[in-house]
């Protein structure tokens, strides 16, 4: 398998303080990599480093391109769709306008893709003319993912998509991500608190602690690690 995203000894900084101390990480083509770890371990920072939202050192390679010096909007243009913490919804715009913004950089007709999204998430079709801020949490998460998918990304970056959602909604959302991953050979880099669900779906996993990768390997391997089971899976 070839890697679509590779981080080599990546350090990241907030102002002067270093918060990632040399992270190595791989997302395989059409694969799903999950980052686990406690709060403050550097999971979100890792994602932000990939998208050029924090200052970083080291090498970040995406489809053969170096990303460290690129602007966030350029990286998005290369095919990295990032659904940030808090979903990044444009709450003052309508559902449909949110989707159109997702299609801003992508080639092809936005209307066709929008129909595809309404197929994946029928509830969004019902609410297309509503202000996005009036949607429920689960609907907003669907909208955020649909907006990212409008970019026809090669890599989808998700920061805690299950945060604050009912388990059934989470399952529905992940089922759709799985489907699109298989159908369109999209890769996924995921930060997720729900470790058992994440390890079940992912093929690679990394455990971060205070800015270091302390454990990595296949998702199955990490799921069988007794220490990880105790700390993150609870059995």
């Amino acid at each position: 398998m070839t890697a679509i995203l590779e981080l080599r000894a990546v350090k990241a900084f907030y102002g002067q303080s270093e918060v990632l101390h040399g992270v190595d990480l791989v997302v395989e083509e059409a694969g799903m990599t999950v980052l686990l770890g406690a709060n403050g371990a550097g999971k979100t920072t890792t994602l932000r480093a990939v998208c050029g939202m924090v200052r970083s050192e080291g090498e970040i390679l995406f489809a053969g391109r170096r990303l460290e010096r690129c602007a966030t909007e350029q990286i998005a243009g290369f095919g990295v769709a990032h659904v940030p913490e808090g979903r990044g919804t444009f709450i003052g715009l309508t559902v449909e306008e949110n989707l159109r913004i997702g299609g801003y950089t992508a080639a092809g007709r936005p209307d066709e893709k929008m129909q595809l999204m309404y197929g994946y998430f029928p509830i969004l079709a019902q609410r297309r003319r509503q202000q996005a801020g009036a949607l429920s949490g689960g609907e907003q998460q669907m909208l955020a993912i649909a907006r990212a998918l409008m970019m026809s990304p090669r890599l989808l970056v998700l920061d805690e998509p299950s945060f604050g959602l009912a388990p059934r909604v989470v399952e529905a959302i992940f089922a759709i991500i799985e489907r699109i991953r298989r159908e369109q050979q999209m890769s996924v880099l995921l930060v997720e608190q729900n470790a058992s669900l994440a390890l079940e779906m992912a093929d690679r996993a990394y455990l971060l602690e205070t800015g270091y990768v302390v454990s990595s390997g296949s998702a199955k391997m990490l799921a069988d690690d007794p220490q990880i089971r105790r700390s993150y899976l609870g059995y």
Partner: protein
Amino acid sequence: MHQLLQQIFSGLAAGAVYASLALALVMIYRATDLVNFAQGEMAMFSTYIAWTLVNAELPFWAAFVITLAVSFVGGMLIERIVIRPVENAPILTAVVVTIGLLLIFNATAGWIYSYTLQEFPSPFPDRPLFGALMTTRDMGVIAVTLAMLVALFCFFRFTATGLAMRAAAQNPESARLSGINVGRMLALGWGFAAAIGAVAGIMVAPVLFLDPNMMSGVLLYAFTGALLGGITSPVGAVIGGLIVGVTENLVGTYLIASQLKLTVALILIIIVLVFRPNGLFGTAVVRRV
């Protein structure tokens, strides 16, 4: 009754100018949370450009279009050169920068064109309309403003760039993640604001006569209009500007000496801030978590 209607219509014509400038203020405020105190002086400077072109024997509407284009580019340059360096500075720093711009434009205009009043031609003939209820000149000002508003509305509502500009104003980080160049959108916003201001300046100059301090009163009325409409609402800015224009005219005609008209604006500002700080249309967006 006839006089009242007359005053309302001429108030609407003045209000259309305030509405334009208020809209320019709101555009920049929404994009950067910044009240651009230099908006009036930028408009004044644009008007001098138009005046120079007209004096160079250019047809009025050609001068109008060229001035708008020059102002658009000028507005973008101001954002790039002066505003961008203080983008991440505290908001007061940026406000002080716009006040600095105000002084620079005022002094530069005085230096180049002197402080003497200049006559500025109106593109519209001055004839009574509808049994002297209004003049063709007022009608022309209202029509030009309306046309501009409709064009702007269509741009922001129906084009990809317009949508991207709204997105960038609302959630810059998320806009970047969607591949939108937020810096470019901000520059475009300043360009639009400068061009809108230019229209306001050109429309008001035949009435006020052109001089470097021409827009100081107009800016105050525009600011009142923007505040009245809710500083975050473009529709509110337009309606607020019109209300201010009509109120100012009626109060100046019937209640107080017209020399005191500016106080109307200040009193309106106080009333809005005390009783309805969000203005008429500046309601908070619906948010469910």
